[in-house]
């Protein structure tokens, strides 16, 4: 051990302060390294959405879409994008947050300059980028394979995806709050994902659900995301419906954030 430590001179004018962006970039970079070293997480995040998209294709083929105003493309494309969001962000991040908490990484990070929300957001960065890149690739790829038309209102697709990203990152933190161990994180993502798949119309459009169920399912957390993304492709989502979808997404995201504030733990339970 050499002793050449040069202490900072005792002054109040410190060196250049690191901002939130720099801190989150550093955390995101470390988290990306970890994702690339975890084969299981990488498979879930990268391969599953594509596999699901292609297996959904035969399922959608068998649907009776007459009278719903939907086509193969406007069912399959939004569903595939939603899958990419779920597997890259939600499933992945529940595990990331729980593992980092149980191995005392979050506790150690909180002793430094980085703030709580930066820890969660910085850790989510690689997952979010990966999800959005997959969305672009899937959209382009499926459009080519299905010979589908381009989205009529692309801005709604973008707004919908961003709403989905926010909801799923915060939702993953909330789910992690109720997940004790890294092992149980392989199950605890299922309930919300199942409810969203069926209720919010990931696999099957909500238009094919019985009316009573469809009425309720419109208010589920992930439904506005599907409405916006699908509406972006069909171009037939009215102004009121757009506003309502945004509002529902906002309320659910805010509620989940409040839940994270209330229940998220930064260290293991003793």
């Amino acid at each position, binding site marked *: 051990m050499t002793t050449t430590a040069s202490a*900072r001179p005792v002054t109040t004018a*410190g060196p250049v302060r690191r901002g939130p962006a720099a801190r989150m970039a550093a*955390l995101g970079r470390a988290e990306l390294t970890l994702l690339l070293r975890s084969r299981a997480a990488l498979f879930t995040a990268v391969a599953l959405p594509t596999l699901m998209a292609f297996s959904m294709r035969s399922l959608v083929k068998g649907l009776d879409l007459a009278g719903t105003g939907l086509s193969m493309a406007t069912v399959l494309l939004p569903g595939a994008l939603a899958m990419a969001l779920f597997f890259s962000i939600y499933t992945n991040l529940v595990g990331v947050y729980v593992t980092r908490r149980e*191995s005392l990484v979050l*506790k*150690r990070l909180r*002793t430094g300059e980085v703030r709580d929300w930066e820890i969660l957001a910085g850790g989510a960065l690689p997952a979010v980028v990966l999800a959005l890149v997959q969305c672009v690739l899937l959209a382009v790829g499926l459009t080519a394979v299905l010979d589908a038309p381009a989205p009529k209102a692309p801005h709604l697709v973008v707004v919908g995806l961003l709403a989905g990203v926010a909801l799923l990152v915060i939702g993953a933190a909330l789910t992690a709050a109720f997940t004790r161990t890294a092992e149980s994180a392989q199950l605890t993502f299922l309930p919300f994902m199942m409810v969203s798949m069926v209720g919010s119309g990931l696999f099957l459009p909500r238009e094919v659900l019985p009316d009573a169920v469809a009425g309720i399912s419109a208010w589920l957390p992930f439904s506005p995301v599907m409405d916006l993304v699908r509406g972006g492709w069909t171009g037939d989502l009215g102004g009121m419906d757009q506003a309502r979808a945004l509002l529902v997404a906002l309320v659910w995201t805010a509620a989940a954030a409040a839940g994270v504030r209330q229940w998220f733990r930064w260290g293991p339970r003793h």
Partner: protein
Amino acid sequence: MDTVIETVGLKRSYRDFDAVRGIDFTVARGELFALLGTNGAGKTSTLELLEGQAVPTGGTVQVLGRDPFRDRAAVRHRIGVMLQEGGFPPELTILETVRMWAGCTSGARPADEALALTGLSDRRKVRVKQLSGGERRRLDLALALLGRPEVLFLDEPTTGLDAQSRRDTWDLIRELKLQGTTVLLTTHYLEEAEQLADRLAIMHKGLIATTGRVADVVAERPSRITFQLPPDRFLGELPPLAPMGVTRHTTENGTVLLETRELQRTATELLTWAHRTGVTLHALDVRSASLEEAFMEIAKGLDNEESR
């Protein structure tokens, strides 16, 4: 004197347990202050309050003139923290871990410098999961030093280190202190406090039992002389004990224990008597008070007080 850390009536309670029950102390700039105590004495709970990890249940705490919890943005970039048990992602290498931490730290040292300080330069490419417990402690210390902190909080910094690494860490802490860093460390190694600390506080069950300069805390305790008399000799044959400076004496299983605050005088008179009378004192042991004895007696005294 420039006060860097100050607590007044500091308390911390968990649901059914008062971990810190009202403690006051100050640490001046450039001082090394040690918090000693057995497990559960409240050292870590106190440290977390100083680091701004938690809000006190009662009392106040100031670090660098600020509330470390409420004014965290003004305090955090000036302090360095090493937890008793901090975690790092097992699949990152040492260098990647330091880089991640540097990205979150204002005015961070170059990673290589931090690793050289803690003797980890050769291990920079090794993943955290392959490190020994001692190496992990040193990595933790490297991160605490990364921002060239004015105040360093070290929670049991050498626990789990082998003897050589412990001495290296002591050297490093001394060097940082020479450069003006204020250090607050907890330890249950009394030798560590004796080696490093300017002042210390001994905590017991959430309270400070005694505080002061190391030499003063030790000086409050008597020195001890023990020996065995030959079977045909009796304690009564010694010269009168009180004039020799003996404050207390006991005999147990043939071993005589004399306590004194004037070790040299008492020892001289005892040995002079033995020489004059031709008595051999078996198993003779003459020792000054140590921090260890001070510590044990304070803990014992407090327990007796509580059970009374």
